[in-house]
């Protein structure tokens, strides 16, 4: 499943906490026309470097659809950043 939201948590040096919900679903909808426009360019690019274009699209789609549930957290002594894809 494509990640439909991202939760970002930032703790700054001033001990301020920011919780941010990014609705990725909206982003995908906005990006969809751009992806359709870029698709022929991507396919031509694949053919130029002798890569099967449909296999490339399938692989990229596979990566996008398996990104949900990815977590990343980085902590410093005085600040931290964490992100969770849903």
């Amino acid at each position, binding site marked *: 499943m494509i990640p439909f939201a991202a939760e970002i948590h930032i703790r700054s040096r001033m001990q301020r906490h920011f919780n941010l919900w990014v609705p990725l679903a909206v982003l995908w909808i906005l990006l969809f026309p751009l992806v359709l426009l870029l698709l022929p360019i991507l396919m031509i690019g694949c053919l130029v470097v002798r*890569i099967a274009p449909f*296999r*490339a699209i399938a*692989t990229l789609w*596979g*990566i996008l659809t*398996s990104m949900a549930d990815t977590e990343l957290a980085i*902590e*410093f002594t005085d600040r931290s950043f964490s992100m969770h894809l849903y």
Partner: protein
Amino acid sequence: MNEDRRKILEMLAQGKITADEAERLIAALEKEPARPTSSGSPDPAPKAKPKYLRVLVESHEPANADSPSLVNVRVPMQLLRAGVRLASLIPPQARDHVNGALRENGVPVDISQIRPENLEEIVDQLDDLTVDVDQKNDKVKVKVYCE
């Protein structure tokens, strides 16, 4: 031969039960699921398929405030499998270059031969891997495990 089957045969030999009764009892025993015996240890439960790969990098004495003290990444196994397929998308000329560089550095691996099945083999062996990295002013522990 298990204990129950032996008892049935003993009862048959002693004439306490008939051959028909013994046959029925043995048939009933065979229908029962196997129970662990006291002498032998039970079969270990099948290992659950891991869903995530966790990479933890802990720094106990960060060199400075800009060095992270903890990096915690959880990646779905599905994403790793999809990532392995990226190797097949490397253009042939770049693939030859990468293979040559790997061979020069003592890693005779053909990256075009890397398949998602190879990842499964690694994951099967990867229960809990901890690597201690000692740097000049920093002690870093890298832990990689599946969950």
